[in-house]
Structure formats: structure tokens, C-alpha cells
């Protein structure tokens, strides 16, 4: 993937877009886990949330900067 997106002549960092997408995805996964009642079995939900986000954003970022 290119490091910068070309938006009508303006260069736009891909990472910023990926950040937003990763945020939205982890938000959706979070709700999905709660609907399956999985949070009953977890010790520290915020840590899982952060980890999911870090995973998604990390994987997406690796596609750009590799």
C-alpha cells in the first residue's frame, strides 16, 4: 500500500485512515464480544480492548511500512 493517499492533489497519510478504520473495527468487535457474553469470563476488559486495537492497527500499519 502507498504511504500517502492522493486526495484531489493533497497528500494524505494512509496511517491516519487506517487508525480510524482500526478504531471502528475494534469498537464493533467489542460490541460483538459483549453480545456473546464473553466479558463474563475476562479479567480486565479494557486491556483486551486495547490489545485488539493494537493488533488491528499493527497489522494494518505493517501492510504500509514493510
Amino acid at each position, binding site marked *: 500500500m502507498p504511504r500517502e493517499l492522493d486526495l484531489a492533489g493533497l497528500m494524505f497519510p494512509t496511517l491516519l485512515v487506517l487508525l480510524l478504520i482500526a478504531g471502528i473495527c475494534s469498537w464493533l468487535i467489542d*460490541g460483538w464480544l*459483549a*453480545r456473546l*457474553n464473553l466479558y463474563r469470563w475476562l479479567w480486565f476488559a*479494557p486491556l483486551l480492548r*486495547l490489545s485488539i486495537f493494537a493488533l488491528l492497527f499493527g497489522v494494518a500499519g505493517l501492510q504500509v511500512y514493510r
Partner: protein
Amino acid sequence: MSAVALKRVGAVLQEVLPPKGRQTVLFIFKSVIAALLALWLSLRFGLDRPSTSMVTVFIVAQPQSGLVLAKAAYRALGTLIGCAAALVLLWTCGSVPELFLSFLAVWIGLCAAGAARFRDFKAYAFVLSGYTACLVGLPAAITTDGAFPMALSRVSEVLLGIFCASVVSELIAPQKMVPMLVALIRGRYRDFAEGASKVFRGELDEAATAALHKRLSGEIMRMESLRAAAYFEDAETRVRNVRLRQVNGDFMTMLTSFHAFERLARRLERAPVNDGIRALRLAVEPLAAFLEKPAGTAAEAAGQIAVLERIVKELEPLSLPGSVAAAYPELARDVATGSALVQQLGEELLQHLRSYGALVDAGWTADDRPSPARFVPHADMRTAITIGMRVLISTAISSIFWLETGWPQGPGFVLNSVVVCCLFAAAPRPEAPIGQMVQGAIISVILGLICAMFLLPYTTDFLTLAVVLTPFLVLGVWLMSFPQLFGVGTGFLVFFCTLVVPAPKPQVDPTAIIELGLSIVVGFMTGGLSFSVFVPAGPDSRLRRLHASLRDQLDIACHGSLKGLVHRVDGQVRDLISQVAITPAPPEKLGALQDYGLDLLEAAHAIVQARQLVDEHPELQSCVRSLRDLLDCIVECCRRPSTAARERALAAIESMIAALTSGTLVQPPTPELNELVAALHRLRAALVDITDFYLTPEPAHAA
């Protein structure tokens, strides 16, 4: 080793500090850590202004994680929209500064109107989108080149700050709001049930009942704001969101009928014979007995549903000895109202118990009702538009001043006046928070100068910078932790960071700090001035506006679309009543207006009920016309209150009741017909009470 030491420090702190102090220390610790983390990361990333990230951390700083996340989410949203708006405006009319600035002023006006209209967290997104558009657009009004990189860096800085604040508040000793929400729902139901059971039996006097009612109404608002914040904090709350809204809506409906009951009981107590009140107490006794042992948790509530269902099915209508009914027709009418009211109370209790019990599990079940009308704390459109106009005018004037004088700090000056106008757009008494912000700004200029001249030169790397900044930051957050000094603390931190925190290439210049500080303070004062000059925000005009909005709700009840109407009107009126409560005016004035709102709510309920009955039952079709005429009379009575209009409305109700009971309108009599008659009785009773207070013609000298 260090973990053990940390634990020991924690144990010592626990012993030394009272619980409140512990909270404060934790809040200060978390905020400062988050701010330093944001500073370090933005210096590492080489962002243009690391101060923005720090400021963001402090702006969203709250003791509870849910509040931080909610504020952070809306701040991010507002920043993105604001940047986009500024760029669009620059692309389309950036070449002509005057044109660009006027469009920008219109945009800010729109945002301020939105901020005034939505009184929950969404207001914050509106403020931010206006403010960010200014921040990105104003410097670009003169030279357009830098706008896009500036917008990008602004977005990155804000997102970084939000990220740090959220992560720290969630990961380090999170202070959850969900337990508060759960405790609120449980405690509220218990309080209601115990109070209601006493009121049903006549064991509570008028003052105590009024106090109970006021407290429970307040909890409706509190639950709404807790729910809105917990939504961001906890995925399980998010999944249950619809049901939580439903519980709150059902609670409101139940409370309104409860209020109607209280008033009816009082009226019956004043009656010349006590047969009426005795019949009422007898009829409601099964409900009183049921409420004596309220469910403590959602699971218990789910278990009680079957019991209550049986009780409600067996509720009996009130009976009055034939001779008494003949002698006192007024009493007979009240008793008929009472029968319907007790039945309705039972059904609403059941409804609330069902939605309360449904909170037990997170998954969807087949019997989930469609989402009710949303309860959004709204200000009325009129207020929102006047506030938007005010901000538009003041932005335009300060922009003209900037363009005419060519003041180099002009953008900062305009920006700060906009901030003030937007942030406090809907505050009941904007002078107080603005004054606090100005105080904070002044302190920040003084301390900022000291820090920049005597301390900053000694910093060599991030560690020394952090050591130098920490005492000031601790001071600011400490100020924030006092509710009455919150504004001072926030103002101080925001401007201190803006003034002092170095860019990647530091250039400490005392004159620049003074210039910048001057633009901040003058901008604030200009913004503050606009509140007192354009559309004054005094308590009297505010009460007048709220009164008018309350009256409009009756109009909505008469003519609004029926879908979810009860919840909508309920939410609106209760929200307006809560806005009345925070107006700085003498308590007896507020009390009168609040009572007026409750009476109105009762009338609105009766109206909606009558409309629903006529709408749903084809055999009542013949009443459509007369009901419409009746509603027109009531609307007229609201719009132009006068004794004549009120008499006309009451006469219209009487004649419709007479037509219904004599059988000239509908043949043969059905249970729905009786319900309709009862609803009309209730409407009449409510209207009589309202007219007692307000719908008399204004005395001549009032004009």
C-alpha cells in the same frame, strides 16, 4: 522489587488519605501521567504543536473512565468534521478573505445553534467542529498555503491526546460508571416502590410526596447522563442500550401517572364526603401491597412479573354508593377518573417491571419491543437559533476588527471569542464559567512567564522538561478536582500548555507569551461581552422561553405524530423542568413553573391517550371530528391564554363527555368508550389545575 515498593506506597496512601482524597490523588496522578505521555509521544513523532495533545488530555480529563471516553469520542468527531468544513470552505472561497470569513461565521453560528440544541455530550462535538474550523481556517484566511498540513497536524495531535487520555483512564485503576448506573436503577425503583406504596395508603404528607417526586424526576436525568457515558465505557451497557432507554421511558410514564394519582387523591380528600377517597384507597390496595416488597435486582424483577400480571388483571374499578354519586356529580366524575387511573398505573408498573427484568441478559430475545422514541435532552429551536445568531454576530464583529486593524494576534483573538461563545452557549448563567476561565487564563500567563523565563532554559531533554512542568500541571489538575474551581483549573491548564510547552524547535520569547496571553484574555472578554449585549441570557428571559417551550409541548401532544409520542413529550417536558431547576431565580418562581410543567404533562398524557384510542379503534371513528375540535380549543387556549379560551376548552370537553356517555356519538358502549371518557375526565381535571396557575389573562401592568 519496585512492584512491592509501589504496593507499599499504595497501602500507606490508603491509610493516610480519606476516600475523597484518595480519589483526588488518583485523578491528579492519572491526568498528569496521561499528559506527559502525550507530550512525549508527540515530541517523538515530531508533531507541530505537542501542546495541543496535552491540552486535549486535560480537556477530556474526568475522574470516571466513561466520561473521559464519551468526551474523547465526541471531541474526535468534532475535530474531524471541523477540519473538513474548514478545508471545504477554503477550497470554495478561500481566495476572498471577507467572503471566507463570513461563511466561517455562518458555520460557527450553525455549530453554536447545534451545541445549544443538544444538551448532552453531542453539544461538545458541535462546539469542537465550530472551534476547529476556526483554528484551521483563520490563519489560512490570509495565506491559504498552510491550511492542509495544519488541519492534518491538528487532527493527529488531537487524536494522539485522546488516545493517551483514554488508555490511561481505562488501564490505570479505572473508575467505572456502570456500578453507579446499576445502583441508580435499583435504588430508584426501590425508592419509588416504597414511596408509592405509602402514598397509595395515604401515609405520606404532601411535602414529603413532593420531595419524593422531585428526587425521582432528577434521577431520570441522572440516569440518562450516566447511560450516555457508560455507553462508551462498557460494551455490555452498549448492548443493553435500547433496554436502558426503555426502562427510563417507562419509569417516566409511570411517574407521571403516579403524580396524577397523588393529585386525584388530594382532590378526593377535599371532597365533602369521604366515600371517594375510601374507594380509591381500596382499589389501589393490591398495588400498594405488591410495592411494599420491591425487587432489589433485575433478576428479582423478572421473577415478580407473573405476580404483578395477576394483580393487574384482578384490579377492580372504584365503586361509589348510588345515592352519593347522584348527590355529588363532580365526585362521581373524579371516581370514574380514578378507576381508569388505577388500571393504567397497574399496567405501567407492569410495563416498567418487564423492561427492568429484561436487563438481566444481554442477548436479543424475540419479544424485544421496537426502540422507543429517543429521549434527547433538547433545547427548543428558538433558543438554539437565537444563540446561533449571537455567535454569528460576535464572530463577524471580531473578524472585522481583526481585518481592519491587522493585529498579528487577530486569529487567536477571534478564536478565543468563538470558544467562549460556543462553549457556554446554553449555560444558564454564562458569566460565572467565563469569569473562571478568564481567571485561569490570567494565572496561566503569570505562571507561564515564570516557568518560561526561569525554568525552561535549564531543560535539556524530555526528563528535565517533565520535571519542570509537573508541579504546574499538578496544581492545575488539583484546582480542577474542586467542583467550584473546575473552570479555573481547566482554563489554567489549557492556556499554560499553549503558552509554555515548547515546539520541537523551542523559541522562548517573553514578548510573544505576553502578546499571545493578551489575545486570549481580550478574546475571552469579547466573547463574554456578547452574552450580555446580544440576546441577553438573563434568568427572566430564560424562564419566559422555557415557559413558552413547555406550552408548545401541549401543542405537540395535540398534533404530533402518534408514534412514540408519550415518551417524546414526557422526555421533553421533564428535560424542560430540569432546565427550569438550574435557572438562577427565586425558588418560588421555579417551583410554580415546575408544577405547571407537571400539570401540563398530565394533560398531555390524557390527550395522547384519547388520540390513541380514537386512532386504534374503528368503532370510535365517529369521535374523530369532535376530538379534533376539542384539541383545537386546547391549542388555542395554550397559544393565547385567556379566561374565555379556557372556558371554551372546558366546555368542549364537557360536551364531548356528555355526547359520549349519552350514546349520541357511539353506539353501543364498549370498554374503549369508557376508557376514552376516563381520559377526557383526566384531561379536564388537569386543565382545571393548569388554569388555576397560569391561563388567566395577564394583568395590564405586566405589559
